[in-house]
């Protein structure tokens, strides 16, 4: 029994890491350039876009789940893709939750730089690739804060994951949805075990990221 449960916990944990990791990577790949662009460029409609991002940072995950579910539902606009109740649907929902966090925190970090910081780098005549490198180095504290916030949001999210993933055994069951299920079934021992794993994951990952973030402050 104990062996079976351990194997189950490992399986659920690995799936959680895969789904959340994919969502985090896509969120960062899209959110970092978008946040940097929003922080550096001034164009018509920028304020509206920033306002949308800020609203998104506080959007309830369960509402995000509902919107994604309506889009992916069999009769929804993207129903033909047959993504509902699949890990991909969960990744999509988690991206929608994490993306505003990444964009918002990144653009705040870029916006905190002096107005002529970029001009000062330009006058050194550096190639664009190195200018981008200097910028990322300069805002690294903000970037890591964005990663930590996005990871926390994704790992702890349960409402949207349940709604678009349905907690299917062996397919879309992740740590958060499994905990909800086991509590519902009265199996507190298993729920506590999964919760301990989830907390451990959070502590280890945020600890590593925080160590990286603070290493440059010596």
């Amino acid at each position: 029994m104990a062996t079976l449960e351990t194997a189950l916990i490992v399986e659920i944990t690995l799936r959680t890491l895969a789904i959340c990791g994919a969502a985090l990577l896509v969120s960062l790949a899209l959110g970092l350039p978008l946040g940097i662009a929003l922080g550096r460029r001034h164009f018509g409609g920028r304020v509206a876009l920033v306002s949308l991002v800020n609203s998104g940072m506080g959007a309830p995950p369960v509402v995000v789940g509902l919107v994604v579910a309506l889009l992916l539902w069999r009769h929804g606009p993207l129903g033909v893709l047959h993504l509902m109740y699949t890990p991909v649907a969960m990744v999509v929902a988690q991206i929608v939750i994490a993306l505003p966090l990444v964009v918002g925190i990144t653009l705040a970090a870029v916006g905190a730089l002096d107005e002529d910081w970029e001009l000062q780098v330009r006058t050194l005549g550096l190639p664009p690739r190195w200018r981008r490198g200097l910028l990322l180095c300069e805002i690294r504290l903000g970037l890591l804060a964005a990663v930590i916030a996005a990871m926390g949001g994704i790992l702890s999210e349960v409402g949207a994951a349940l709604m678009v993933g349905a907690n299917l055994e062996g397919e879309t069951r992740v740590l958060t949805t499994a905990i909800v299920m086991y509590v519902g079934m009265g199996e507190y021992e298993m729920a506590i075990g999964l919760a301990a794993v989830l907390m451990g994951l959070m502590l280890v990952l945020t600890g590593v990221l925080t160590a990286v973030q603070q290493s440059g402050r010596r």
Partner: protein
Amino acid sequence: MSGAALLSARELRVERRSRRGSFTLQIDALDLRAGEVLAILGPNGAGKSTLLRALAGLEHPARGAIDSAAAGPITLVFQRPAAFAGSVAHNVAAALLGRGLERAQLERRVREALERFEIASLAPRRAHTLSGGELRRLALARAFVLAPAVLLLDEPFDDLDASGQASLSLDLRRAIGDTGVAVAMVTHDLRRALLLADRIAVLLEGRLAQIDRRDSVLEKPRTPEIARVVGMSNLVRGVVVAAPDGGRRVEVDAHHAIPVRTALETGCGVWAGIRPEHLKIDVGRGGSGIAIGKAVVRSVVDDGVAASVALAWAGEELHTHLLAGRGLARSLEPGALVVLAVQPEHVHLIPVAEAPRAAG
């Protein structure tokens, strides 16, 4: 010392709009020549920094262009230099990123640049922890490590105390002399500008009012406004009249006149300009010049190095400088009556009708 033009602005027009209003910089012709230091002077809001940014290629001119014949980099050190993340050494090395230098070569150049501005001991320190003066030295090291052909400096001595300004200006002069870099420098510090500059350009309200050799601008400003910018603060309006000795003098009123050497016709309305260092308090030992009458001491401001004395003369306030802490400076009190004197050749006349225009 100076040669062919490295940067040339022709028919340049830069327009800037902000919440505080609009501003236009208009330069008909301006050259920065190889090996020279050009000091750009002017009151606040005259467009000095805008001109510097235009020369650095950071402004988009509405008209005209900046032509460059510089064989090396053109770099600008900002009024408030940025400290990049990482150490002081990393900050200087950042300027050389992506240029294909070998590690040993890069380290040597960084070390030399740090030593040039006497911050080698700060190399491992985080740049964000530097003081204002140290950061300014870091910015200069970061600029010089590039071996620039043209260096543009925006208020390089801003926010530094007197000793910091003095030591940095000496290091900067040595660095400029060693490298032969052409420099355009915006500053409101006339003394530092004079220490470094070969030529002076005066900007007024977005226009180039005068550009010429340093001494020409200092001694022969074209307008009263330019005179004030270059430190000729004693300006008195009068009329050229014949003196009893057959020479000329500027009559300020019925009781006050200043002896001058001029070819201007009598009856010509002029501004008589006298630099403070050329206006003397006559203590009867001779050598001060020709007496121009009595004045009342209004104030004596002693900064420990020089004493600036304000005097009431012919209804005007004039200023002279004395060595601080020495005889006369210690004995002068507000209200004291003194005799002023000036050498006629130290009085610069600006005809009242002359319109300001640039000269080359």
